[in-house]
C-alpha cells in the first residue's frame, strides 16, 4: 500500500496542482481580525461607492426563484417571501459582493490574471466587453471540458488564471469543479436554486435578469480598472 501511495503522489493528475503554483498573485484577507474596520477596507478601490444596497435593489439583485425550486443551502441569504418569490437579504449580498470585489482588486493590483467565464449566449457580448474594457480575459460561450485540468494539451501552457469569475452556477458546474482541482479561487453569482458549497466567494443574488448581471459585471470592471490605475500612478 505504501508503494501505491507513493505512485499516486507522483501521478500526473495530482501533479497538475504543482504547475498551478506558478501563479503570480495570492491574496489573503481575513475578516475576523479587521471586523471593526471593515468599511475602511472597502474604501480601497472605491468599492463602497460602487456597491450600495440601493444600487443593488435598482438592479433587481434581490429577486430569487419561486420557493418551490429553492436550494436549502441558500436559505441563510434569504430575507423572506413575496408573492411566492424568494427575496434576498441585500445587506448580506452587498457584503459578499464587496468581499469578492476586494479579492479581484487585490489580484489585479499584483498583475494576476482574472478570467471571466460565461456559458450563456445571452451574455456573450456583455462578458467580452467587460473583460476587454479592463484588460482581462474571457471564455465564452462554451467551456471545453479539460481546459484547466488538461491545459498542457488544450492551451499549450501551464499558466492558469489566478481568479475565475462566473456569471451563474447552473451551466458552469464543470468550470467550477476544474478550477477547484487546480487550486484557483472562484467568484460566482449564485441564485436561490444553486449550490454555493464549491464556490470560494459566492455572491447570493439574481443571475437571470440582464440588469443584475450587467451590474455584477460593471462592478468588477470598475474595481479592476481602479486597481490598475492605482498601480500605474504609483
Amino acid at each position: 500500500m505504501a508503494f501505491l501511495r507513493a505512485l499516486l503522489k507522483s501521478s500526473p493528475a495530482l501533479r497538475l496542482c504543482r504547475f498551478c503554483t506558478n501563479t503570480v498573485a495570492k491574496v489573503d484577507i481575513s475578516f475576523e481580525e479587521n471586523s471593526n474596520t471593515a468599511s475602511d477596507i472597502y474604501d480601497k478601490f472605491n468599492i463602497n461607492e460602487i456597491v450600495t444596497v440601493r444600487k443593488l435593489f435598482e438592479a433587481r439583485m434581490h429577486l430569487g426563484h419561486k420557493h418551490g425550486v429553492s436550494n436549502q443551502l441558500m436559505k441563510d441569504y434569504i430575507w423572506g417571501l413575496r408573492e411566492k418569490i424568494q427575496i434576498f437579504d441585500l445587506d448580506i449580498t452587498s457584503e459578499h459582493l464587496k468581499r469578492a470585489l476586494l479579492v479581484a482588486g487585490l489580484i489585479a493590483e499584483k498583475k494576476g490574471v482574472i478570467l471571466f467565464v460565461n456559458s450563456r449566449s445571452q451574455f456573450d457580448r456583455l462578458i467580452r466587453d467587460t473583460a476587454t474594457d479592463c484588460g482581462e480575459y474571457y471564455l465564452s460561450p462554451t467551456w471545453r471540458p479539460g481546459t484547466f485540468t488538461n491545459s498542457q494539451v488544450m492551451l499549450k501552457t501551464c499558466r492558469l488564471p489566478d481568479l475565475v469569475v462566473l456569471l451563474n452556477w447552473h451551466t458552469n458546474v464543470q468550470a467550477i469543479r476544474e478550477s477547484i482541482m487546480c487550486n484557483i479561487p472562484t467568484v460566482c453569482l449564485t441564485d436561490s436554486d444553486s449550490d454555493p458549497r464549491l464556490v470560494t466567494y459566492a455572491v447570493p443574488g439574481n443571475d437571470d435578469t440582464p440588469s443584475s448581471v450587467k451590474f455584477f459585471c460593471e462592478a468588477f470592471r470598475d474595481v479592476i480598472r481602479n486597481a490598475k490605475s492605482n498601480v500605474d500612478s504609483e
Partner: protein
Amino acid sequence: MLPVLKRSIKSCREISSLLGAKFPSVSRFTTTEAEPPPNEELEAPPINAQPIVLEKTSPTEEELKNEEPWMQEEIIAYYRSKNILAKMMGRDPETFSQEDVQKAIRYLLPSSLFDKKARPFLKHPSEIYPKRIESSFDANNRPIEASFYSGSPCYDALVHKIYIEENKLDKRKARSESVPSQPLKWIEKDKLQNKIEEELTDEQYQDIINKLKPLAAHPDSHLISDFLDQYCKPVLDYRAKAKKYAISKCGYAHAMGHRKTAVAEVWLKKGTGEVTINNKPLQKYFGYITHRQQALYPLVLTKLLGQFDVKARVHGGGESGRAGAIRLGISRALLAFPGDHGELLEAENLLVRDPRRVERKKPGQKKARKKFAWVKR
C-alpha cells in the same frame, strides 16, 4: 505489479520512484547522485568496432538556461534516472543511448498493456511537455490575447471584432428598412484559416459567415466596408460576365456549357440557322423533340432563331444532359453579341450552371431511394 502500471507514467521522477519501490538496492546509487559520475577518459575503441557516440550524462547549461524552475528540476531528474538505469543494467552511462533506455525499461518493467502510450517510458522532458509559445505571453507572464483561455483564441478574437463592428450600425434601421441584398461571394474556409492563422471547424466557419451576413445586408453597410471587403466580394452579374466572351476575327463567339456530367463547347456565328452537333445536324443528333427544344431555347426566347449558325462539340453524360449543356453554352455565347439578350436570359435563369447531380446509391437499397422487394414471411 500490473494494476499499478495501468496509469501512464510520464515523468522520469515517477520511473525513479517506481524503481526505488521495486528495487530497494537502488538507494545505493541515489546517495551518489549529488556527485555526478567522474568523466573517465575512455580507452581507445577496438579495431573494427563502430565509432562510439558519447551520450550526455548531465544537463548542459544551454539546456537549463531558458527554462522555468520546475522544468529545470525535471531535466536534472531525467539525467539522474538515466544514469541509475545504466548502472542497473551494468553499462557505462556515457554509452547508454535513448534506445537502450527503452530496452532497459521494457526489461525491468514488463507491461502487457495493449496501448503503447500507456506503457512506462523515460524521455527527455522537452519531448513530453509542450513548448511554451513565447509570442503569446508578455513581460508580466500574462497572455497577450483576451481570448487566450478559450482554446481557439484567433477565432474568438474575430467574433469579438464582428461584435464591435456591429455596434457601429443602427440596429433599428435594419428592421425598418429592407434593402434588396446584393448577391455576395463569401470567403472560403481555407483562405479564412490562412488569414487568422488558426484551424477552424466547419461549425465555427459557418458561425462566422452567419454573423457576417446581417452586417452585409444592413442599409449602412458601406460605413464598415473596409472590414467587410476582407471577407466577401460581390458576385459578378451578366454584364461583367459578358466581358469574358468576345467575337473572334472569323465572327465566331465561343463558350462552354455544363449540365450533369455533360460538357459542351459551342461556337456561334451570324448566319442562316444551321445547327450541327458533333458534325451531325440537330435532327439526327437528338431523337426526341424535347431535347431539340431544350437545346435551342435561348435562341427561341430572344427571337433569334434562324439568324445564327451553331456548331457544338459535346461529350459525357446522357442526352438530356447534353441538351442542357448546349443550352448553357449558347446562352453564354449570345452575350458576346450586341443587344439586350442578357437581361432576358438572366430573368429566365439561363446563365446559371445547374448544380444538381445524381444522388448517390445507398447500401441496403437498390438505388438512391428505391428499396429492395420485401415480403413479410
